[in-house]
């Protein structure tokens, strides 16, 4: 196996363009574990550690938060760039694994691995994030909901890597929550739900919900969100939304829970995420008012 440590993105993309079995090494949190388990044997590793300009979090004038692919989970968890509707992305980051993993793992690596039980995919699909990918042929942008295509499968073409993730501003008054149910702290989710809601005079005016760990990709259902908008987020409306999401799910049976168990707890996890987001939306601090 060859090992490359390019200092520019251009050099990295050139290596990747010439070898379909080469893999990028970002934080190594998953890739190295999979190599140690003898599950994958890349022909070459292209370390992104020395590539300039891939790490960091920037807030643009329009409120969009751009996160470089090599940004560590802990940096996202510690960032104050997010508005309250975007903030569940940092909440999701704070739930990934343990401190050692959060200090090494990166957002680009996590979403490229595309485990549907991982925390970022669900959160990013809920907030309408855009993934910027680049190859030697050029750059393109992919909506998060189209980026994740299957279990450990993404829309990345051969030779393409994630360079950044952009999270658009959420409506004024929106707040969010990431609710994760895992067997033990630091594990992948059995079921996770990400919610963004905004209320006007107690009536829901904006809703985004995604569920993780229940299908080959994060699940987001437009009809479920439509059931919440115009409601007062009363239990019946939230239950109806959860039922619409559950109908689109197809969980696996594994040691984290059977398919039936995941579907059974899904409504509770969704309800908790919505309740927390709502509570945060209603507790809008005075100093944040325009």
């Amino acid at each position, binding site marked *: 196996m060859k090992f490359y440590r390019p200092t520019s993105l251009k050099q990295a993309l050139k290596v990747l363009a010439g070898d379909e079995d080469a893999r990028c090494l970002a934080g190594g949190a998953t890739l190295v574990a*999979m190599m140690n388990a*003898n*599950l*994958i044997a890349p022909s070459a590793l292209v370390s992104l550690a020395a590539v300039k300009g891939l790490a960091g979090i920037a807030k643009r004038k329009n409120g969009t938060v751009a996160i470089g692919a090599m940004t560590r989970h802990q940096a996202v968890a510690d960032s104050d760039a997010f508005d309250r509707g975007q903030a569940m992305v940092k909440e999701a980051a704070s739930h990934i694994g343990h401190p050692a993993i959060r200090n090494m793992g990166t957002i680009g690596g996590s979403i490229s*691995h595309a485990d549907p039980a991982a925390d970022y995919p669900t959160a990013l699909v809920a907030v309408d994030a855009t993934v910027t990918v680049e190859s030697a042929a050029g750059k393109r942008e992919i909506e998060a909901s189209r980026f994740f295509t299957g*279990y450990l499968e993404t829309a990345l073409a051969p030779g393409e890597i994630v360079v950044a993730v952009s999270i658009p501003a959420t409506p004024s008054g929106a707040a969010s929550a990431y609710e994760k149910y895992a067997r033990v702290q630091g594990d992948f989710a059995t079921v996770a739900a990400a919610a963004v809601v905004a209320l006007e005079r107690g009536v829901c005016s904006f809703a985004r919900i995604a569920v993780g760990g229940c299908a*080959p990709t994060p699940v987001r259902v437009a009809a479920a969100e439509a059931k919440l908008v115009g409601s007062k987020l009363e239990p019946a409306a939230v239950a109806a939304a959860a039922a619409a999401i559950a109908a689109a799910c*197809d969980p*696996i*049976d594994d040691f984290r829970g059977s398919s039936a168990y995941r579907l059974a707890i899904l409504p509770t996890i969704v309800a908790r995420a919505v309740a927390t987001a709502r509570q945060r939306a209603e507790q809008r601090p005075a100093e944040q008012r325009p």
Partner: protein
Amino acid sequence: MQIAETFAVAAPIERVWQFITDPTAVAPCVPGCQSYEVLGPKTYKATVKIALGPIKTTFNVIVDLTAEQPPTFLASTARGEEGGKASTLTAQNELRLAADGPSATTVSYTSEVALVGRLGKFGLGIMKKKAKTIGEEFAVAFRARVEAAEANRGGTTSEVLSTDVPQAGA
């Protein structure tokens, strides 16, 4: 893990039986099948490429037909291993055909699969989903192949087919 699938083919049961017992017809419908070889009247060998995200592998599989009752029942065992024996799989398969009319057949199969070695570590939940996807892709390809052959015979109407195979569905 147990895998069970059912799919319908618009063709008489005898025709479906003829196809499903013919390795030259079945092998091209198996997703990822790179090559196959007939080792004996009831023994076949196939090389199948499988990818699960970044995990890519090739299994060399030997299939033995162990029991058959034409045109409704076929039992087989499959043994496969990756190069270097990093993982091995064994499967006990049962396939049943049922006539739903003169030109409609329901194909159902069950497979009890055991996977050990490096891929066994990965968790059977995902493997089961992968097997289901492969099964669905096979069903689509197999149905298309049999139905295209039926259309070429000019026998797409039940009248013609019932003349061809009067016992179908009886």
